[in-house]
C-alpha cells in the first residue's frame, strides 16, 4: 500500500506475566552449564509463550543464541542490523513495526529487514537489555544485548505474553553472559568450569558474605548455597573458600570488580 499511514491498533493491555513459564525458565537458565542447554530451555519457553523464533545477540550484534528459519541470515555487518540500531535507541521493548519510527534506517538496514521477511519472518518484538558496566555510579547504562521474539510470516504475535517475553529475554541474556564469561575455562582443556549459579555464589563469597546472606540474596536456601560452594571447591580441587576465591581470580573467572562489589 503506497500511503504513509500508521495502521497499528493499540495492542491490548498485557496480561500478567506467564508466571510459571518465567519461573521455570529462570531456574533452568541459572543452572544451565552449556550454551546448547540454555538454548534448549529458551526454545521451550518461547514455544510455551506462543512465539515461533528467538534470537539473542550481544551489543555488537553477534548472535549468541538463535532459533531462526533456515533461510534467515544475520546482518553481514553490525551497521546493517536495523534491529540493533533500534535497540541502541530504545530502553523499552519495541515491536518490529515501530523500528522505522525509532531509528532512521539506512538503505542496508531496510534491506536487512526486507530479507528477514523474505526468509519467512513476520511480526516481532525485541527486548533491548541494558546493564551497567564499569561500576561507576551515575554513569551511562549502555546496551549490553538484545533478545528478539519472532513470528512466522502470517502468524499473529501473542500480545498477551509480551510481558513474559520481556522477563525471559533478560534472564536468557544474563545466563548466556555468565556462560560466556566461563568460556575461557571451556576452551582451555583441564580447567574446571562452574555453573552460573556456582559462579554467583563464588562472587558473593569473595565479597565476604555468609551462606545465609548469599541464600537470601539469591533466593535459595542456605544448604543449597553450601552445596554450590562445596561443588565449586571440588571442581577446583581446593579445600578452603579463600583458595576458591584466589583460583577464580587467577583464572579471570572472577574479576576484581566482582570481588569488591
Amino acid at each position, binding site marked *: *500500500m*503506497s*500511503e*504513509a*499511514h*500508521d*495502521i*497499528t*491498533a493499540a495492542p491490548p493491555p498485557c496480561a500478567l506475566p506467564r508466571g510459571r513459564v518465567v519461573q521455570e525458565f529462570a531456574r533452568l537458565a541459572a543452572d544451565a552449564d552449556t550454551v546448547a542447554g540454555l538454548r534448549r530451555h529458551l526454545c521451550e519457553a518461547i514455544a510455551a509463550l506462543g512465539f515461533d523464533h528467538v534470537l539473542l545477540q550481544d551489543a555488537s550484534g553477534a548472535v549468541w543464541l538463535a532459533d531462526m528459519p533456515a533461510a534467515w541470515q544475520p546482518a553481514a555487518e553490525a551497521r546493517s542490523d536495523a534491529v540493533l540500531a533500534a535497540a541502541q535507541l530504545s530502553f523499552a521493548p519495541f*515491536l*518490529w*513495526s515501530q*523500528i*522505522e*519510527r525509532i531509528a532512521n*534506517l539506512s*538503505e542496508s538496514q*531496510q*534491506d536487512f*529487514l*526486507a*530479507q528477514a*521477511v*523474505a526468509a519467512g519472518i*513476520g*511480526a516481532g518484538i525485541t527486548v533491548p537489555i541494558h546493564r551497567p558496566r564499569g561500576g561507576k555510579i551515575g554513569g551511562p547504562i549502555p546496551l549490553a544485548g538484545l533478545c528478539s521474539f519472532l513470528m512466522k*510470516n*502470517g*502468524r*499473529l*504475535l501473542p500480545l498477551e505474553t509480551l510481558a513474559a517475553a520481556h522477563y525471559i529475554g533478560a534472564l536468557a541474556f544474563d545466563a548466556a553472559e555468565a556462560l560466556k564469561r566461563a568460556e575461557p575455562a571451556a576452551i582451555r582443556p583441564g580447567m574446571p568450569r562452574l555453573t552460573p549459579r556456582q559462579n554467583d555464589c563464588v562472587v558473593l563469597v569473595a565479597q565476604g558474605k555468609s551462606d545465609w546472606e548469599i541464600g537470601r540474596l539469591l533466593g535459595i536456601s542456605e544448604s543449597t548455597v553450601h552445596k554450590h560452594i562445596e561443588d565449586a571447591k571440588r571442581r577446583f580441587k581446593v579445600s578452603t573458600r579463600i583458595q576458591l576465591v584466589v583460583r577464580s581470580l587467577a583464572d579471570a573467572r572472577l574479576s576484581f570488580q566482582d570481588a569488591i562489589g
Partner: protein
Amino acid sequence: MLEVVTRENKHLYTEQLEQMFRLRHRLFVDSMKWEELRKPDGREIDQFDNDEAVYLLLIEDGEVLGSHRLLPTTGPHLFSEIFPEMCEQKGRQTGPRIYELNRTGTDPLLPRDRQLQGMRLLLVGLLEFCQGAGIEKLTLLTPLHTLYHCLMAGVKVEPLGLPKKIDEERQAAVAFVTDETSLANVRDYFHLQESIVRYHHAPGAESSVYRIPPLAPHAVAAE
C-alpha cells in the same frame, strides 16, 4: 462499509467515484507530493482508471473516506508498465487470480484517528473482498513501515524485490497472500469480525458477493 465498484455497477457510483478522484489528488499530490500526478482540475486519474479497474470505496453517510484500486495482472498494470524493475528478486507475479493493489489511502483531511480507523477498515475489507472474489494474491508497492504494520496484523507477505527509492521514499514490491488465515488474523488483530464489504449491482438491490471473472476479459479476447 466498503463498497465494490466495477464496470458493471459504476453507473451507480458516479458521484462517489468523482469524490475518490479528488480524494486521491489531495492524498497523493497535495499531501504526499507525487508531483507527476498533479492535474489542473484536482482529479488524480490515470490510464489505469478504466473498465478493468475494481475499486473498493470506504463510504460513510454517502462520503468517500478512503479507497483502493485493484487491477488485473493479466492486463497492463503498474508493475508491468511503470515499475518493471521492482520485482527483480522473485519476478513479476501475474495470473487471473492475482490482482495488483495501488492508490490505497484515506482522506488526509480526516482527523488522524479517523484515518487510522479508515486504514484498518480498508485492510480488513480488502482481505474480505479477496476471499469472496476469489483473488489469491495481491501484488503491491509498499513502504517498509506499512509492510511491518501488515505483518503485525498477521498478513502473510511474500517480498518480490528489495526496497528501492521512489519519490523520496523507499518502497518494496511484495505480494499479500489473501487467504483465510490472513483474513482471520487481521479480523482478530483489529477486533473487526463482522462483514463490511458490500456489492450492489442495481439500485436498491441486495448486497451480493462479487466474483472475479475466471479469466480477465482481455485474456479471453487474446485466446
